[in-house]
C-alpha cells in the first residue's frame, strides 16, 4: 500500500488501544451502588394471587454454558411448586434477568428485580465475582438471594443463603480423601481469580498442618488455552496428584494437553472442583475418564428423590441432558425457601430468616438441613470418578451431612486464614 504511512509503533499502539477499550467496556466502572437511597428496603409485592421470584443467571456470554442449566433447574422447581398449589396459596411467577456474564450487569439486574419487579426472593449467580457484585445490593434493600454454587467460603452475608458447598464441605474432604489414598504431594493448578487463589490458600494451610506437600502452584488467566508449560512443570514436579481449580473452558485445553503428554489418571490423578456432568460432556469423556471430582451431588447419586429429579428434568429439557451439582442446589434452594416461608407464615424477609434454622428438605443429594446462624446448608461431601459414559460415579462420601463452617473455625490449621 503506497498510501500506508503509519509506523509499526503507531499501529501497535492503535491495536492495544482497541484492545484496552474493549477491556474497559467489559468492566465498566459501575459497581452496582444504585442511585436510590431508600435504604428501608423495597418490599415484595405479595398483594395479588401470584408472587414474583427473581431468576438471576447469565443466559449469554462465557458463563452461559453453566448458568443456563441452573436457570432450567430453577424453572423446574417453580413449576413443581406451582403444580402442588404454590406457596401460602399463591402461585409463583418467575421473573428472569440475564446477568450476561458481566458483574456490573448482575448488580443492575439484581436492583431491577428487587425494585421494579418486587420479587419476594432471588435465585442465582454462579461466579464469586458476580456474587460479590450483587451482595451490597441485596444488603441495602434487605432482600434475599439464594446462591446455588460451591464457593471459597469466608463470607456470611445476612441476606444471602449459600446452598452450594463451602470449603469444609468440598475442598477439605477432597484433601482428606487424597491423603487417605497416600497422594500427599500436590500440584495446584487454577484460574487466576478469587476462587482458585482463596481455595489454594486453604489447601496450603491444610497441607502444612497435615504433612502434605504442595510441590507447585500455577495460575492461568481465565480462558487461557496454552497449557504446554504448566503440564511440563506438573510432570517434572514428581507430584502424586493435581488439585485443579481451573474454571470454564481452560479445562478443555488443560486436559487435552494432560492426556497427550502421557500423564494418566493412574500415574497422576487430577481432582477437579469445578467440573460437573455438563462440563464433562463438553470437554470430552476421552480426556477425563477415571479422573476425580469433588461435589455433593452427582446424577448417579442413589435415592428416590434423585430418580424423580432426573426424570423430571429430562422430561422437561431432553433425554440427553445431564444433571449436576449446581443445578441440584438451585432446584433445592427454591424448595427450601418455600419451606421457610411456610414455617414463617409470611413472605417477610426478617420472618423468613428467623424461620430458616433447622428447615430440612429431602433433596436429590440426600437430606439437607439449613443452618440458620451461618445461612449455609448441611451437605454430604462426595468424591466421584468420571466413567466411560461421561457420568460421574461416587467412590467415597462423608457418611452424612457435614455442618457448614465457612470461616473454618473448627480447624486449628486454618486459624491464620481470613
Amino acid at each position: 500500500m503506497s498510501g500506508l504511512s503509519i509506523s509499526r509503533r503507531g499501529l501497535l499502539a492503535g491495536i492495544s488501544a482497541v484492545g484496552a477499550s474493549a477491556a474497559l467496556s467489559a468492566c465498566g466502572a459501575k459497581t452496582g451502588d444504585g442511585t436510590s437511597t431508600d435504604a428501608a428496603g423495597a418490599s415484595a409485592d405479595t398483594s395479588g394471587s401470584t408472587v414474583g421470584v427473581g431468576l438471576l443467571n447469565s443466559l449469554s456470554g462465557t458463563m452461559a454454558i453453566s448458568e443456563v442449566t441452573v436457570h432450567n433447574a430453577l424453572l423446574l422447581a417453580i413449576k413443581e411448586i406451582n403444580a402442588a398449589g404454590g406457596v401460602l396459596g399463591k402461585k409463583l411467577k418467575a421473573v428472569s434477568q440475564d446477568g450476561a456474564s458481566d458483574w456490573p450487569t448482575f448488580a443492575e439486574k439484581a436492583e431491577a428485580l428487587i425494585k421494579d419487579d418486587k420479587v419476594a426472593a432471588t435465585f442465582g449467580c454462579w461466579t464469586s465475582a458476580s456474587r460479590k457484585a450483587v451482595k451490597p445490593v441485596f444488603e441495602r434493600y434487605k432482600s434475599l438471594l439464594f446462591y446455588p454454587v460451591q464457593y471459597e467460603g469466608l463470607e456470611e452475608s445476612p441476606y444471602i443463603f449459600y446452598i452450594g458447598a463451602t470449603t469444609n464441605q468440598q475442598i477439605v474432604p477432597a484433601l482428606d480423601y487424597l491423603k487417605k489414598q497416600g497422594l500427599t504431594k500436590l500440584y495446584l493448578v487454577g484460574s487466576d481469580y478469587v476462587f482458585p487463589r482463596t481455595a489454594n490458600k486453604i489447601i496450603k494451610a491444610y497441607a502444612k498442618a497435615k504433612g502434605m506437600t504442595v510441590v507447585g502452584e500455577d495460575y492461568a488467566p481465565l480462558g487461557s488455552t496454552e497449557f504446554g508449560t504448566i503440564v511440563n512443570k506438573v510432570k517434572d514436579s514428581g507430584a502424586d496428584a493435581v488439585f485443579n481449580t481451573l474454571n470454564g473452558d481452560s479445562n478443555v485445553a488443560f486436559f487435552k494437553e494432560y492426556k497427550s503428554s502421557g500423564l494418566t489418571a493412574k500415574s497422576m490423578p487430577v481432582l477437579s472442583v469445578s467440573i460437573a456432568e455438563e462440563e464433562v460432556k463438553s470437554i470430552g469423556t476421552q480426556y477425563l475418564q477415571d479422573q476425580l471430582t469433588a461435589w455433593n451431588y452427582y446424577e448417579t447419586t442413589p435415592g428416590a428423590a434423585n430418580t424423580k429429579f432426573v426424570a423430571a428434568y429430562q422430561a422437561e429439557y431432553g433425554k440427553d441432558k445431564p444433571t449436576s451439582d449446581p443445578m441440584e442446589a438451585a432446584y433445592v434452594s427454591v424448595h427450601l425457601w418455600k419451606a421457610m416461608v411456610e414455617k414463617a407464615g409470611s413472605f417477610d424477609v426478617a420472618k423468613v430468616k428467623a424461620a430458616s434454622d433447622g428447615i430440612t428438605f429431602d433433596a436429590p443429594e440426600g437430606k439437607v438441613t439449613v443452618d440458620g446462624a451461618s445461612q449455609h446448608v448441611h451437605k454430604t461431601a462426595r468424591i466421584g470418578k468420571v466413567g466411560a459414559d461421561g457420568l460421574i460415579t461416587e467412590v467415597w462420601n462423608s457418611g452424612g451431612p457435614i455442618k457448614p463452617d465457612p470461616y473454618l473455625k473448627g480447624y486449628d490449621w486454618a486459624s491464620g486464614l481470613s
Partner: protein
Amino acid sequence: MTVILSQSFTGISIGAVLLLIALGLTLTFGQMGVINMAHGEFIMAGAYTTYVLQKSVSSAGVSLLVALPVAFLVAGAMGALLEWLLIRRLYTRPLDTLLVTWGVSLMLQQLARDVFGAPNVQTHAPDLLTGNISLGGGITFANSRLFILGLALFCVLALTLILRLTPLGRRIRAVVQNRDLAEVSGIATGRVDRMTFFIGSGLAGVAGVALTLVGPIGPTMGTNYIVDAFLVVVVGGIGQLKGSVITAFALGVLQSVLEYSTTVSVAKVIVLVAIVAFLQWRPQGLYTLRTRSLA
C-alpha cells in the same frame, strides 16, 4: 536434560501455533498493509468448519483432513467478500480499516453465537492425535503438537512457493513493491488484492482447524489470538515471511522458558516488554522489504 527437551518442544509448538495464526496476516497485513481485526474471526470460521464437518462426516480423522481444504475455502471466501465489500474502499485509510474490521469482527462473533449458540463446542481429535511419541526418559512429544508443527511448516512452504514461482505470486510481489507501476504494467491490482486477501484469510481458516486440537471452539476464540498474530508480523518485519517464521518460534520459546521459571502472567509481561524494547531498536522489525515505492 529432560526438562530442557520437553520445554524446547513446548516452545516450538507454541511457536507453530503462533506461526499458523500469523501466516495469513503476513499477507493481508504484511504485504497489503490492511489492519484486519476480523482475522481472528476467520480463524474461528475455520474452527467451526471443522466442527460442522465432524457432525456430518463421522470419523474424526477423515473430517479433520477434509476440514483443512474446506476451512481454507470458507475463510478465504469470507476474506475475499470482506475485501470486496469494505476494505477495497479503505486502502488509503489504514486506521479506518482497523475500526471497520473491528466492527465486522464483533458482528461475526454475534453471528457465530446465533448460529452455534453461546456455549463453546468441542470436536473429537482422532485417536492417533491424542497419543504421543515417547523418547524414553519421560520425554514425550504430543502427536497433536507434531501435527500442528508439520501443518505450519507445510503452509509456510506452500506460501513461499506460491509467492516465488507462480504468476499470481509475481503479481502479488509486484503490487506490494510498487502498486502504480504494477497497474501501468497491466496488472489488475484490484483482482490481485482480492486473491491475496483470499489466500491470507484462507490460511487463518487452516489455523482454526489446527486450534481445534488445542482448545475449545467458541464465538470469541479469535480475540484470544489476534493480538499475538499482529505481534508476530510486526516484530518479524513487514512483507517478509522469513521474519514471521523466526519471530514466531523465538516468541514461543521465550514464552515457554519464562513461563517455566516464573508464572504465566509474568512471562507474558516480560515478552511484551521485550517486544517493545526490540521495536525501539528496530522499528521496522526483524526484516524489511526494500521497495521502490515512495511511501
